[in-house]
């Protein structure tokens, strides 16, 4: 990592999808008055016949995607993650997952990207709800490289897939392009004093903390668990092998997400490790920007560094 700042993942998503759709007329995008938020205005201008607009009707959006998929299209349903994965949850469950349609559900402005717009617009439930739906794959890209690769791979991915994107520019975490594969976690750096595991837009926070710790002579492992499901247990176990401290962080409720997934593996594998789960606690969430809220809940690089040091001692 070279600490250069990339673009918002949403822009990378839209650019990648436009490039792919130019080459592949079978790709269809469905939006629910969300092409602006989804950065798909250019897509609509350049490939108008490949964009279906259903208006503000997320349930319909998902089931129409299932139909387009049944009609032979590679379809991307793009809608704010908050609405897509709550209001349309039954359509995702029945029409996409249970009916086994390899459509891609793209949750935009995910997590707490909408900041001060409040809980109606936040999706801190999507990992938990979708993890419990059989046959769903869930990916939360950490940077522009992951954001772009997942779209390229999604085109030939033959199962129902949910991808989550935020709207703030992100650090480039991959200094030279590593392999990215849906379902295979990446160990971004290795150190023997502790392990950070994170997903999506919190990975960069773990990385920045690891850099601060390094200045104090503390070496950490950083794992990007970009695919929440299926969970890459093998890489996770490799990353925590012989480690004493583990910290997970996610832009999601502390319930039902990455943290509890890791806890489940640790417990069932009888691994003894000092473990802390960071995320959004069960309370009326503090109001603020995405960055301020994550900082508030202990996920600023500085707070992570202090936590790590206290756990190592």
């Amino acid at each position: 990592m070279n600490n250069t700042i990339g673009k918002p993942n949403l822009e990378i998503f839209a650019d990648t999808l436009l490039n792919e759709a130019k080459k592949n007329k079978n790709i269809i995008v469905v939006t629910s008055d969300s092409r602006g938020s989804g950065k798909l205005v250019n897509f609509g201008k350049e490939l108008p016949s490949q964009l279906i607009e259903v208006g503000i009707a997320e349930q319909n959006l998902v089931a129409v995607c299932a139909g387009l998929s049944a009609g032979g299209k590679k379809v991307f349903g793009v809608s704010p993650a908050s609405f897509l994965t709550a209001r349309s949850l039954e359509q995702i469950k029945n029409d996409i997952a249970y009916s086994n349609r390899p459509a891609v559900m793209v949750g935009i402005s995910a997590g707490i990207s909408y900041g001060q717009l409040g809980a109606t617009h936040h999706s801190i439930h999507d990992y938990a709800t979708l993890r419990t739906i059989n046959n769903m794959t869930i990916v939360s890209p950490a940077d522009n490289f992951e954001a772009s690769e997942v779209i390229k791979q999604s085109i030939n991915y033959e199962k129902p897939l949910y991808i989550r994107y935020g709207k703030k520019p992100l650090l480039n975490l991959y200094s030279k392009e590593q392999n990215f594969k849906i379902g295979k976690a990446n160990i971004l750096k290795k150190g023997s004093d502790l392990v950070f595991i994170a997903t999506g837009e919190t990975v960069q926070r773990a990385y920045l903390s690891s850099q601060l710790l390094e200045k104090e002579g503390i070496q950490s492992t950083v794992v990007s668990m970009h695919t929440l499901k299926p969970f890459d247990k093998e890489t996770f176990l490799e990353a925590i092998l012989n480690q004493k401290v583990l910290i997970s962080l996610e832009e999601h409720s502390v319930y039902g997400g990455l943290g509890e997934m890791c806890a489940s593996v640790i417990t069932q594998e009888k691994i003894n490790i000092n473990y802390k789960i960071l995320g959004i606690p069960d309370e009326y969430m503090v109001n603020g920007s995405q960055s301020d809220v994550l900082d508030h809940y202990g996920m600023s690089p500085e707070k992570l560094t202090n936590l790590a040091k206290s756990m190592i001692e």
Partner: protein
Amino acid sequence: MNINELSIKSIEYRKTLLEIIYNSGAGHTGGSLSCVDILNVLYNDVLGISPDNFDSIERNRYIQSKGHSVEALYTVLCDKGFFSRSELDTLNKFDSHFIGHPTRKVSGIEHNTGALGHGLSVATGIALAYRIDANPFKVFTLLGDGELSEGSVWEACTTANKYQLDNLYVIVDRNNLQITGDTELVNPIEPLNQKFESFGFSVKEINGHDLGALKENLNGTPFEKDKPNLIIANTIKGKGISFMENIVSWHHRVPTEKEYKLAMSELEKELKKYE
């Protein structure tokens, strides 16, 4: 298939669906009996769907949005050769794919339904894909009348209207009853005609047990160019069995042995008329 042949099929289908419900100890009896004539005409005269062409998208499609009437659908698919009668007889047994709502694990089933208000959106999506590809085939879907309280049905209507999907044929099984009682007492949905017309559909109202009327309206060209088609099929819940007709408890009641025998004898008598 001519009307005489279709009439015989309808009686045989009623016998089979009652038999599988009776033997398996569960099923949506009333709604299966109200829609079986529609399915009969669709599969024997309109759709042209068979096990040979099912995997192709160069064919007509049928989505059963009122998934609970699956016994009627299984019965017709069995007759069309998608699976054997002995497979169908595993209905509701442990580890059988033949469950109480349509699933694609069963050959011939297009989409997994059961939760209401989904099928019209799915059918709209297929119709859109066909439109994009200039695929000339049609998409049919069957909705229950109680189902029309689901808001997502009306969301789908706006999309079908916007994209002028005259390749989409929506049939409402208007049997006037839902699990609690009269649809107009539970949550009124009338005036259906005007509702669908105002949403941009071309609407026809027919007797959903009149095989000739079903043949005539489900075959042929769109009712109006660039408008999705909507057929209000007026039906009788429990149709064909005297003591089940229009009785709300038959929504998902299973006949007793005595009732089953009586029902079968009524159907046998009906069948004799065609000998």
